[in-house]
Each structure stands twice: as structure tokens, then as C-alpha cells.
């Protein structure tokens, strides 16, 4: 039971946290004011995907959710994926493949791909398109993002990795 109606508690990037909030505050606004700047505002209408985060391993638009809807949930943001020294497999492919132009959509893209890799075990093109359809990019024409993603998914498929998704810290 929540004790104080003006706080919200949820697991954020693996750590249980409690934040003061207001009933009308969006999850995106809360995350950004708490310093999680990798989650972007692009439209505020759930149409561009720049604010995509994981809620219980599913990709959601943080701009549409109220912060309080995260109560008791497991939220993951781009800040939990990769580090400067050890970017995730997908981040590495995106960086090397020239898939990051302005980069504004990229964190959201990565989170949608995480959701895909957590939920699915096979990655047909149609399934991939379905998961990635909510993330708009205006710079790249998606070609190099697609190629980077496809490389990672193909490797996962052939390695038979199931449901772990967390390509965030590859051992290689």
C-alpha cells in the first residue's frame, strides 16, 4: 500500500527508488528532472518513440504514462544500457555502423530493441518491424539502424539466446 499519495516507488535500473511526484506528472518529466536525460521529449503524444523506456520489460512511451502508473513496476532507461568502456552489443553496432546521426531517436530505438530481445526468441523481419515501428527517425532512413539491429539479432538467433535480451554487457 502506498502511504503517501504524493510519492511513487518503483525499481529504476535495478534499484528501488522513491520519488516525490504529483498526480499529473508524466513519467518522462519525472525521469528527466531526476537526471535521466537519455529519455527524450519528441512529441508528448506517444507518436515518435524518443521517450521509450521499459516497464516490466515491455517498451512504453514515458510521455504518455503518469509517473504514478510506475508504482511497483520495474522501469529501465537507456542509462542502464552499456557504458563508455562497454557499450551494449547493439550500441556498438550502431556506433560502428554509422547509424547514429543526430542520435536523438537512438536511446528510444535501443529500448524498443531491448523489449524485442526480451520478449521474442526468433526475429523475423516482420516481427522486428512491428517492435520498431513506434520509433521515428528523420536522419538515417533507418537503413543503418536496421543493419546494426539485424546483425545483433542474427547473432542472438544463431547463439540460441532466449529471453535474456540483456545484450547490455556482452562477455566478449
Amino acid at each position, binding site marked *: 500500500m502506498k502511504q503517501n499519495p504524493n510519492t511513487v516507488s518503483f525499481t529504476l535500473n535495478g534499484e528501488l527508488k522513491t520519488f516525490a511526484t504529483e498526480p499529473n506528472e508524466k513519467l518522462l518529466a519525472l525521469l528527466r528532472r531526476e537526471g535521466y536525460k537519455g529519455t527524450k521529449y519528441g512529441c508528448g503524444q506517444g*507518436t515518435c518513440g524518443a521517450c521509450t523506456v521499459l516497464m516490466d520489460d515491455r517498451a512504453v512511451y514515458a510521455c504518455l504514462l503518469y509517473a504514478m502508473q510506475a508504482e511497483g513496476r520495474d522501469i529501465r532507461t537507456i542509462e542502464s544500457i552499456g557504458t563508455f568502456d562497454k557499450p551494449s552489443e547493439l550500441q556498438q553496432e550502431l556506433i560502428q555502423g*554509422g547509424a547514429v546521426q543526430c542520435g536523438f531517436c537512438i536511446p528510444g530505438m535501443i529500448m524498443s530493441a531491448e523489449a524485442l530481445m526480451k520478449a521474442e526468441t526468433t526475429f523475423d523481419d516482420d516481427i522486428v518491424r512491428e517492435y520498431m515501428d513506434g520509433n521515428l527517425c*528523420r536522419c538515417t532512413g533507418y537503413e543503418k539502424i536496421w543493419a546494426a539491429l539485424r546483425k545483433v539479432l542474427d547473432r542472438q538467433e544463431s547463439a540460441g539466446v532466449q529471453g535474456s535480451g540483456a545484450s547490455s554487457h556482452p562477455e566478449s
Partner: protein
Amino acid sequence: MSQDPTANFKQVNHSVTKVDARQLALGKPSYVADFAPADALVVKMLWSPHPHARIQSIDVSDAEKMPGVKAVLWHGNVPRIAHCTAGQGFPEPSPYDTFMFDTKVRFVGDRVAAVAAETEEQALAALARIKVKYEILQPVLSIDEAMADGAPVIHDEPEAHVPIPIPYEPKKNLVARVGCEAGDFEKGLKEADFAFDDTYETPYAQHCPIEPYVSLAQIDSAGRIVITTSTQVPFHCRRIVAQTLGIPVQKIRVIKPRIGGGFGSKQEILLEDIVAMFALRTGRPCFWQFTREENFRTGRTRHPIRVRIRAGVKKDGTITAIGMDCWNNTGAYGGHGLTVVSCCGSKVLPLYRCENIHFLGKVYYTNLPVGGAYRGFGATQAFFGMESTVDKMAEAIGMDPLKFRQLNHIKSGEGSPVFAALGEGKEGVPMTVGSCALGECIVKGAEAIGWKNRADWRRKSGRYRRGIGMAALMQGSSIPHIDMGGASIKINEDGSFNLLVGATDLGTGSDTVLAQIAAEELATTTDKMIVYSSDTDMTPFDVGAYASSTTYLSGEAARKAAADAKRQILHTGAEMLNLPEDQVVCKDAHVQSRDGQHKVSYSDIACYSLYSKNQYQIIGTASHITQKSPPPFAAHFAEIEVDTWTGNIKVLKYVSTIDCGTAVNPALCEGQTEGGTLNGISYALTEQYLFRNGRMTNASFTDYHIFSMRDKPPIQAIIVPSYEETGPFGAKSVSEICINGPAPVFGNAIYNATGARLNEFPFTPEKVLKAIQAVKR
């Protein structure tokens, strides 16, 4: 064929990893909004709900008393200084027809009054309490209405004027007029075996960067205004904000952090004057971010242009005359109006050899959204008309449209009278084309799309009909004698370099490209470059990211600055090696004797020069202006499938070839080409502004569709190298040209599939179906 000049490049012409890719992929704070302090005031604007009205009165007294409100701005409490919001060279070739706030509103989405409050909710609540009385005026909702006798005058304010001598008649809603003639156009038409006269319409569109317009202003400890903003033109921004606020340039610092896309939309000063004014008034950081809806309504758009093409052709394929008349709807304000329409002519007409040329461009105000710079910049609109007519000419003489283009396109060593005649607000610069690989672009693209299997539409039947279309394209690289870019570069103890450039990376990768160019010149590696760009306090001047100029213009500035630093490195290296300067060379981040026996590292040279003897800072500085604007060339091809029952178009394959000179970073060049092409595809097939009484009714990504990963057809980018002698390591431009292709390519492909010729797009199923039904077989 002489030896490939790019063969020995170690940095340039390699797909070096983009210098900022890692931080962006990790989601590190990088963009304007990421730097807004927690105590920043939130700015919100009350926008005009009317396309044309006079403000009879505004009462902000209630709003000022609302909780959290720190300041309200409106026309009664700010300076009234006529200026132009377009970030262009100075004085601008555009009218001074804009005020921070005015007593008149000229489109739905024009400024009325602004609030700065502690929270967004408080700012919005205060806006709702501002009382405005409007006198509704008759709106001008099309270019035909604007041109009509007795049309309402949109800019009746006495201050409206142009800062340079160009035609401007606001009483007739005329923003600009520009033209040129070569040879004898009418005579050329008479000599033709076939003559053509077609009028094409191109629609409004928005750039849709995923990061909307956003600005932050803060007063620093010294009392200066620091504006962190998502801009393509930081130096123009500083100048225009100073002008608009009536304060010295010295008082302002503009910082451009990472930018979430621009495509021309952010070549405009739309927020910065307001956040700066609020910061001055309140002493607080002030933050303003457009909503997506505001980005559509108030943000800049692609000018809708009516393009009439008249042309004549002889049976042997000789083009005897080309005439282009353009009517440009610039919306409520005139920034970029003249220059965009000039580029309709200057970036399109030279593509085909022809002695008799006519060009006339006219620009009119309307009470509709405001046109601005948009990737392609007029060439996009004009190429739709030109390349449609080129296909018609080929068909009339029974020639393959590919062969017709091969026969007539401009080639290396050739010029065009249009280059000299059409500049930006003044005459252009005479030019002969240096590098040109268009011929090879056509051949390679044709092969990739399977052109040889293309069949006449009369031989096709059934519900689904396939068609193949093509277009040849050109653009420019910088504005000669107008654009200037500066760079400086200094060495650090470990042999790294700070490369400081005014050039503005808005996601294009220019920081990386300039670092590669500097590293190549200095015989070191790109990872030794610490690039810092576009901070008006810290970096040299640059006009900014527009006119396909950065690689060609700012790249040469970076190369020259690096060469300047290299001379100093050689000097000190020779001193350390006890060798004459002409006996040493730079290689692999060392200065070494010609035989390689003796060498000293850049790191040791830096330490020596900073600490040991005859100390000085090794620092190179250079500026660059261009003498010409070498065109990149491209040939685009697509195969489509038309559903003749519904009019729906499915793009099966799209091929974008590109001759950008040396591709400084091939992966980034491909990325530019793929991205610009998809933007063009989306524009040609789905994007449009829908209006009700001047109000856009589809201002969201739900109703204004840009292509997603699922919508994307396969796009193949093919780089076809050439070597532009006047560019840095052979480079010219890549960014804009690719957006010009899809509309004419699809128009030609639809014709090839069905025999239906559409003179306007987007090619929505309704329009295509109607055109198919009108075809007589």
C-alpha cells in the same frame, strides 16, 4: 586515367567512427533540454488563432498576477525592431518584416504574448487569462488570392523593408522577384519540333526533426546572456538576437550543443529572442521547447511552389529552350523567400545544355504557415517539374528517357549562363563544372534498378502494374563569395589537438568530417582530434549549416588551419632534430627526416614548444570563402507497383546514386543519402498540410505521416566518386541533393506503370486513382 588521388588517404575517404556516436548511443546529456537547470522558468506562448487579424487590445494584468508567473511579454512592453528571422548572410536578402511582437497577427500560430512561469502548468494557466480583442481581417489563403488585384495587404506596417536593393512591394504582397534570360527563349521554342508547357504544384511540408525547436537562456555571473539553443546558425542567431533586443552582440554568447536534427528548420531564429528577453527581465534561466503541434504550426516549412516549365526539343534530342516560372508562397513572413526561388533556377536549370533559357521567380505573402529553408531549398520543388517534363520530351521524340538525359546533361568542363546570372540576392558567379560523375551515376543506377527491363505502359495490364522511373539531379556546395567558415587548431602535450570550428554539426556528422580532414592534413589520426564546434565565445565564425556548405567550405577552412599548425610543427620538429626545415616531413604523428632515420613525436614537439625552449602555442587558424559552388550530382531510380483499383503505390526498390566528390566519410555519406532519400519518399507519397480557414488540421505525427521503419522501402545508396579539385581532399557536398529525387522519380514511374501523369503530389491513392481513371488507352 591518372592515379587515384584518394589512394593514399589515411583518414579521409574512410568510414571513421562518428566522434559523438558513443555519447549519443549511451543517452548522455547532450542536447539543449538536457542542460536546462531545475530552477529554469518555463516559457509558453499564446498563439494567434486567426490567420489575419489586428490586435485591438491585450490585457495581461490577470495573467501577471497568476501564481508562479514571473514575466509576461507582449507588443506593449518590448522593443519594436523590424528584423528578419532567417539566419542568412548580412545584410539578409530577405525583408525585415518581423517584430518580437506586433499589433497584427498574420497566420494561425503567430505570436501574441508570452509567459514565463515557475512551471509549465502555471505558464499555461496564465496564458488562458490573457484577454485579447481581435479585429478579424480578410485572410489571404492561397497564392492566387495574394496576387489578385485588391488583395488584402498582409504587411501594411511602415517599417517593412528590404536591407539590400531587391524588388519588394509589400502593398502587392510581393516579397521578391528574380529572373534571368540567356539566348532567345522564344526563338528557341519556335525552333523546336515539340514544345511543352506544363504547370506543377508542390506542397507544404515540415522538416520534422525528432528534437523540436528548443532554447535556453541564462544570465551568467558577468551579466551576459548565454543562449544554449538548437540552431543551425549560432553566429547569425547572436547577431539577430542582438538586433531584435537592441543590445550589443558583445552581451550575448550562443552555444550550440548536440542538435536533434534540423534539415533547414533551425536556420531560423524563432525562440531565442524570447528566452533572452525573459532572462534579461527575470534574471532567471528561461527554457522554451516547442510542442510537436507548435513545431508544425509555427515552425518553418517547405515553401509550396507552383512551377511552370516550358521547353522545346528537336527530333534529334537537342533541347532548344527551357523556361521556368515559379510562384513561391512564402506564408506570413518573407525569410528565405527570394533565395529559395532563386535556387529553383540556379540549382536546376544548369543541369541540361540549352542556349535559350528563361527564368522568372516571384514570391508572395499569404496568411499561411511560413516557408523557410528546407533541405533541397527550391531545387526540390523545381526538379519535380523539370524532371517530369524531361521525361515528356524524351517520349515525344521516341527516345529512352535515360538516353535523353545522357545526351543532354552538363558535363565536366562545361558551364551554364545560369551560374553567372543567378545568385542569392545578387548576381551569381560564372562557373564551369569541374568534377562530374553523373554519367556513371546514371549507368550504375540503371543497372541496380534493372532499367533494361523497363516496358512501355501501354504494354501493361491487370490490377497491379509495375513502373520504373528516374531523375537526374544536381545541387550546389556553399554560396560563393558569400559564405565564410573559420577554424583553428592547437596542439596539446599528448599530441592531441583541439579543433575549434564555427561549423555547425546538427547530426550530420560534420564534426567528424572536419576532424578527418584536419587529421589527414596533419598526418595524424582522427581520434587525436577533440572537436568543439559552434560556440560564439570560443570558436571562429562560420555562417552555419546550410547551402550544402559545411564539408566543402568549412572543411577547407579546417584543412587550411591544420596546414598552418603543420608548418609550426615542422618548424619546431626541425629545430629539435637539428635539421633544416626543408629536410623534414610529417608522417604518422611524427616529424621525421626524409630518410626516416631521425624522428620526433607530436607529443614531444608539443611538450618542447610549451615548456622547453622558444616556447609558444602551436596553433593554426584559417578562414575560407569559396570561388565556386561545385554541384554534386545524382541519378535516382525507383521501381514501384501501382494498385490500379485503389491508387495505392508500393515502392519496391529505390536506388540513390551520389557523386559528392571524395566521400570524406563513406558511411556518413551513405547515411545522408539514405536519410534524405527517405525524407523525399515520405514527402512525395504522404506528407501534406491540411487546412481549414488557414489552420492546419493535422499537426501531429498521427495525422501527418512520416515514414517509420515498417514503411521504409529498400533504399540502396551508391557512392560514385569523383574528385573536385577545389574542395578539401576532393570533396564537395552530399546532404541536400538526395531529397530532390523521389517526387519526380515516382511521378515518372507512375506514368511508366499506368500512363497517368500527375503534376502535383503527394501521390496519395485518391489522386493516383483519379489520374489513372482519366487515362485513355
